[in-house]
């Protein structure tokens, strides 16, 4: 057993209170094995990882009990078992980076911007392998970069991090972690901040490196799809406790703990499976295709951002964020807009409701051209088209009560006679998104992420719009919360006959919610049509690549 965690307890001090972040957790990892820790945010999975490598800030954390037994490989090839909790700091530092290393979630901030990539990797080697000469270190650095499949490693070694893309930075982080050939690699959500296609490449790379070097991986994630691709064994954490442990196949197929079952059921792919089953029982009632009258039509829409340079801020070039998109969004249907980050899907969504000025092309809403309407002319349309944002933390004004947030737009548009009537309406909408009416008198910071997202939905609904742009509304949420929000959205869409443009990168969500879909790539729509057809039989090459990169839980 390479690593054995026995009854680990980690307590964190937060503002005078003690939080049992990790509470009596035990697990073990063999050499060459991948152990996945899965859980929702706040379940203690990251704290467990940081406890293992002893990187928690000393002042606010302590370990009242437990052991972290690590089999340290000594320089002469022999092994000894040490307890990371008892080890003096100097010896811990010797293990960290050399025998046990870590990669983090956010590749944009985990590299130091003032050193070249090569210097940062070389520093690790210089520390842990003092016997190496400078030339050898350089050689090893390039080798490490080549190992993580960075093209032209010798030149890349002299680049600064800002010249690399997110995926490449994460590769550099892996190269740095692997430079001293550790026995245990701790990966804390290493692909969460990356696009699916890049994620697929990084996961493949990690598996290859594992096969070649025989290292063990402690993989922290919240995504069961990634677990299914990466893991040998799996532990599910909840509120600081390990509730279930077993091999990946066994846990995913026959979850024993009710919490695990609930998590797996909440996956979008399983939601749609259940909906299909329900539909089958109902007969084909829900299947009749609604008449496909387009509510929103885009004709060759272009949004370019000028790139300015020099003293006079001359426009030297344009970023073509949206480059000639024509799209019909059928009335009463959900259209999913899928694509990777930077493909222009958010820009397109904001331009449709005129939060951004389009450079060219036309936007037709219910047959009317609204592309160039002035602010005053837009006002009647503002009521009929709304937006829900991705980040529930920043989409509500922290200074206003929910009541103020919901009733102010109503007052502006003359909905409801007086304040009391508007409050009653707001309470009804809150009820529809399953929030109690008392929520009206609270401030946004008193709600959890999922609750805030529901308030965001309520804000869009109070004006009783016909069309809503949903901009990645579930990507900041945990799986179970995501399932709730998706169910609410699905129900409201049916009840109110809403038309949604659902911007997302999550294919499972598309399958659950969308009737039609459009795939965007570099500012253009490369494929559009019925969602089901595209998911099963993609035609465009990029769509195929995107769909195959999506990590899925294969249950059968």
């Amino acid at each position: 057993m390479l690593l054995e965690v026995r009854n680990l307890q980690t307590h964190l001090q937060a503002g005078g209170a003690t939080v049992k972040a990790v509470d009596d957790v035990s697990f073990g990892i063999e050499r060459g094995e991948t152990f996945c820790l899965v859980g929702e945010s706040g379940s203690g999975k990251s704290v467990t990882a940081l406890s293992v490598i002893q990187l928690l800030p000393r002042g606010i954390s302590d370990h009242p009990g437990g052991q972290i037994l690590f089999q340290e490989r000594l320089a002469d090839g022999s092994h000894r078992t040490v307890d990371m909790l008892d080890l003096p700091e100097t010896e811990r530092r010797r293990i960290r980076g050399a025998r046990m290393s870590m990669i983090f979630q956010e590749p944009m901030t985990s590299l130091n911007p003032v050193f070249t990539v090569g210097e940062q990797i070389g520093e690790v080697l210089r520390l842990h392998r003092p016997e190496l000469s400078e030339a050898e270190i350089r050689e090893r650095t390039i080798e490490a970069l080549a190992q993580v499949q960075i093209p032209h490693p010798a030149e890349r070694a002299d680049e600064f991090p800002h010249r690399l893309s997110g995926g490449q930075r994460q590769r550099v982080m892996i190269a740095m972690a692997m430079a001293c050939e550790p026995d245990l690699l701790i990966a804390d959500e290493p692909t969460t901040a990356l696009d699916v296609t890049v994620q697929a490449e990084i996961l493949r790379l990690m598996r290859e490196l594992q096969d070649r070097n025989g290292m063990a991986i402690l993989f922290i994630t919240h995504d069961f799809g990634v677990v299914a691709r990466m893991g040998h064994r799996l532990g599910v954490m909840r509120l600081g406790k390990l509730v279930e442990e077993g091999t990946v196949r066994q846990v995913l197929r026959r979850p024993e703990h009710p919490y695990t079952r609930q998590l797996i059921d909440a996956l979008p792919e399983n939601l749609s499976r259940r909906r299909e089953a329900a539909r089958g029982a109902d007969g084909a009632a829900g299947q009749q295709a609604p008449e496909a009258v387009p509510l929103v039509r885009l004709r060759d829409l272009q949004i370019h951002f000028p790139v300015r340079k020099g003293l006079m801020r001359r426009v030297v070039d344009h970023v073509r964020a949206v480059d000639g998109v024509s799209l019909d969004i059928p009335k009463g249907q959900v259209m999913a807009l899928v694509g990777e980050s930077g493909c222009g899907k958010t820009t397109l969504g904001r331009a449709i409701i005129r939060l951004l000025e389009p450079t060219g092309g036309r936007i037709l809403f219910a047959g009317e051209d609204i592309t160039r309407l002035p602010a005053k002319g837009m006002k009647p349309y503002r009521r009929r088209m709304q937006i829900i944002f991705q980040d529930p933390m920043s989409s509500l004004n922290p200074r206003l009560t929910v009541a103020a947030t919901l009733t102010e737009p109503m007052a502006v548009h003359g909905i409801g006679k007086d304040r009391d009537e508007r409050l009653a309406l707001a309470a009804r909408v809150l009820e529809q998104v399953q929030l109690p009416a008392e929520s009206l008198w609270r401030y946004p910071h008193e709600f959890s992420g999922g609750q805030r997202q529901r308030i965001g939905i309520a804000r869009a609904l109070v004006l009783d719009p016909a069309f809503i742009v949903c901009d990645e509304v579930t990507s900041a949420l945990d799986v179970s919360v995501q399932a709730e929000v998706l169910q609410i959205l699905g129900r409201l869409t049916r009840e109110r006959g809403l038309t949604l443009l659902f911007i997302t990168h999550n294919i499972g969500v598309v399958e659950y919610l969308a009737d039609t879909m459009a795939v965007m790539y570099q500012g253009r729509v490369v494929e559009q049509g019925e969602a089901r057809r595209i998911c099963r039989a993609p035609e465009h090459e990029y769509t195929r690549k995107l769909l195959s990169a999506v990590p899925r839980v294969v249950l059968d």
Partner: protein
Amino acid sequence: MTDTVQAPTLTPPTRRSRGYAAQVAREVLLRWGARVGLAWIGILAAVAVFAPFLASSHPWLILEEGNWSSPVLRHLTPTDVTLMAGFCTGLVLLFLRLSLPRKLLILLGVLVVAGGISAVTVSPPKLVIHEQYREAEAAGQYDWVLRAPIPYSPKDYLRDFGDTGMEPPLADDLRRHWLGTEENGADVLSRMVHASRIALAIGFIATGIALVIGVIVGGLMGYFSGIVDMIGMRIVEIFEAIPTLFLLLTFVAFFGRSLYMMMIIIGITSWSGYARYVRAEFLKLREQDYVQAAVACGLPLRSVLFRHMLPNGVAPILVAASFGVASAILAEATLSFLGLGLVDDPSWGQMLNQAVQSSSFNWWMAAFPGGAIFLTVFAYNLVGESLRDALDPYLKKKA
């Protein structure tokens, strides 16, 4: 719509949940620096408002031939009355559960009404004879006298005691001057008490003027950006190039000495910093989702700017403002120290000036007014510091 839905929601619950402002206020008050600073400013404000009662040659109450009378009340000016009415209203409002804008509105209303009424009804005697009560008391005219704690007015030069001039604290047993006398023989403590009015007024009004200009200019720059921003920033740079002190000296030389002129000049030369802060905040806030959502809901520009953006961007401005108050006080003190301040009215800086004027070093003229300036500026800086700590999310995370 059914009544059953309405019933539980129509009235807000009695315990309203805490807003952001209340949270920040609580967090500021948790810090010792802020408590000490605010306590000092509060004491200073009370002293400034009740200065005529604290330090006056006119007794509070006299009993003369069976008649009670109060000379100090007779000598109150309309300004004194208005200030006291405002202060008392403010104190009461502090404990009432009302929204902040409503409180401010009430306070403003009371000030206007009290000012109007007192301007008409209150008329102090034109000719003030400071020594009349002292002489009458010495002559045994009164059966009973209640004097102010500091029985000297700031402009009472003690003519009845002859040519007194500068005296260190407690030099004369007959006349007790706790902090000594200044060159004309007036009581230093009394002058300091009355001077606190000028110190507070110049700080608040000058900073207030700067804030109003800065928020409007900065807000427009930040929200519209583009060409408005470019022009605005150039104006800001022009104003930043103006040396406030030299402008003040020039104006004093040409137009004579006026406290109001000083306030206005300090105000219109120091708004550029606030404009920069507001602009930066607004540039950031404009991209925030809730501002975008407000635009998407078709809310009018007024609401987007002042309801959704300003309250969220006001925090750093408040921090800057509390430092601004301190620097305005210093500017006035500097000017008075250079002998270009007010002529006869008491001011801390002017008293400092007297410390080195005559051949000897008069330590009491340096220590006490200097100490008061130091403590006040320090208090504002403490409050500003605590406010910044309470608002800074990065520091908060570290704590």
